């Protein structure tokens, strides 16, 4: 495997605010997920990778070069930021002509490449429409098309799924996987939702409060997390019977029934086993489920557990 990014003890601070703190990470080719809660430092990391900001300490190499004050390297990198910046008065094709021009592309070669990337992201039909009227999913696709246009070796996608509905999310996940498998781009994609990243890649790095707290294969990280008790809320009818069944299960740590008997708070030490056995639990207890939700879905609690805070 080729190393595409090497960050050694890098720190970045904005005045008194620390963006990254003694951050070390090695990323190899393929798809790598950067996962962390909001404010963890994901966007700061991407800004450093694209040379928009410079490190205050440590060493950062992207494709074997330092990114700060190195615009030539950006011909090998495509960046899709997490925020919306597309000019509403341009149509999709005009926007891509602008991006292509900035990369020194012109003429039939540019036109051909625009058609190609519009096809890859599924935006050919809407490319002549003004971007001000685009949906969130269409804007995300167009941003990705812009980052793909110059056929970069490395694609940096910062929270590409944020704000999209489940259908668009699935399509974007499939697209990101294809960008690597079919089109051969190395991809670094960030998200604050672990299971979304899991559907794209098995290689992840977890970032929390400016530090890389774990990186590697997702199954290894999952095993690190498996001992961490998860709180799950269950609502519906027949909760008393469900509570009786739950206490007999090996993954259950504790069960707490609300006075109205319509709500259960379950603490489990192996959440995957719990979720896998939900159909069986319903069958055994004959309860009617209205809501099942993990309160630990936000990564904060998991990260606090991993770093021992």
């Amino acid at each position, binding site marked *: 495997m080729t190393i595409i990014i090497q960050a050694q003890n890098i720190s970045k601070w*904005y005045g008194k605010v620390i963006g990254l703190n003694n951050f070390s990470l090695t990323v190899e080719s393929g798809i790598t997920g950067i996962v962390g809660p909001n404010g963890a430092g994901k966007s700061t990391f991407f*800004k450093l990778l*694209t040379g*928009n*900001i*410079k490190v205050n300490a440590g060493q950062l190499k992207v494709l074997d070069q330092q990114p700060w*004050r*190195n*615009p*030539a*390297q*950006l*011909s090998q*990198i495509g*960046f899709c*930021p997490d*925020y919306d*910046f597309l*000019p509403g*008065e341009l149509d999709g094709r005009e926007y891509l*002509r*602008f*991006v*292509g*021009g*900035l*990369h*020194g*592309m*012109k003429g039939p070669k540019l036109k051909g490449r625009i058609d190609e990337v519009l096809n890859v992201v599924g935006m050919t039909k809407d490319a002549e429409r003004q971007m001000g009227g685009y949906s969130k999913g269409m804007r995300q696709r167009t941003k990705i098309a*812009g980052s793909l246009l110059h056929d970069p070796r490395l694609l940096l996608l910062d929270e590409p799924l944020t704000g999209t509905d489940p259908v668009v999310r699935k399509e974007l996940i499939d697209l990101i996987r294809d960008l690597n498998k079919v089109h051969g781009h190395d991809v670094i994609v960030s998200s604050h939702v672990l299971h979304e990243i899991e559907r794209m890649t098995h290689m992840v790095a977890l970032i929390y409060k400016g530090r890389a707290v774990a990186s590697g294969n997702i199954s290894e990280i999952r095993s690190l997390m498996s001992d961490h008790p998860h709180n799950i809320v269950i609502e519906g009818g027949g909760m008393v019977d469900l509570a009786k069944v739950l206490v007999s299960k090996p993954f259950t740590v504790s069960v707490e029934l609300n006075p109205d008997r319509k709500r259960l708070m379950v603490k489990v030490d192996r959440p995957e086993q719990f979720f896998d056995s939900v159909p069986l639990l319903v069958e055994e207890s004959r309860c009617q489920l209205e809501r099942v939700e993990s309160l630990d879905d936000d990564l904060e609690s998991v990260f606090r557990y991993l770093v021992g805070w």
Partner: protein
Amino acid sequence: MTWNLSSVTWWGGKMKLDASFIGLRTMVQFSIRKLLLHRRWAIVAILTLLVAGVMGYIATQSDAGISTASDMMNLLMLTFLLPVLALIYGASMIRNEIDDRSIIQVITSPLDRRVSYLGYYLSLAVVLSILLSIITAVGGTCFFLMNGWSDGATELILAFIAVQVIGAIVYSALFLVMGVALKQPIYLGLIYVFVWEGYVGSVPGAIGEYTIRHQLQVIASGLVQDGSIATIGGDGGVAAMVLIALSVVFVAIGAFLFQDKEVM
């Protein structure tokens, strides 16, 4: 030692010369379009109507003549509209893109940031030149339509258009660099326009000569035969050289600041 002309090392960054040219051309094309389509055109339209109204009204006064037209164009356009429009457009051009983060497309492209900055500058200077030329032409035409098209009227309008274009070139360079260097460039810009150019520039003596406005008036005095501006002393060629040198210095400073700017 061999030279490869298709690929040059430019200020440390390496990008093919033709690709840099395409990048620069793209910057200019899209920035001009963005500036012209911006809702600020409404302000420009109102200012144009105001200038047309004032010039037309002055032209109907009993003692109005070509000298009056010259004085009014000096006061309204050269002294007021030129720096104010340059401030409105120039100080906000890059600053707004940094604030709304639309600059990301430019700074994540392989185009050297100094070339991008040059693209911003050229677009700004072109757009300001076009707008100021139109306003000057409309104002002058209104005056002479109401007052009668006298001998030298066309020459007067063309002379002021030429001076406005030179002014647009130098003020664009000044206010663009303010937009890169400062978070709130408009405040310093207003102080500069109204205190330095307006107040200090009106003080008799040598200090008043250290303004862009004065240098433009010196150039204008060589082109215009009517009005008080024609009596301003000085060498127009030297004034033009001073303004060109100032523009080059401001653009160079801006380009280097932009290259080193961390964009959060």
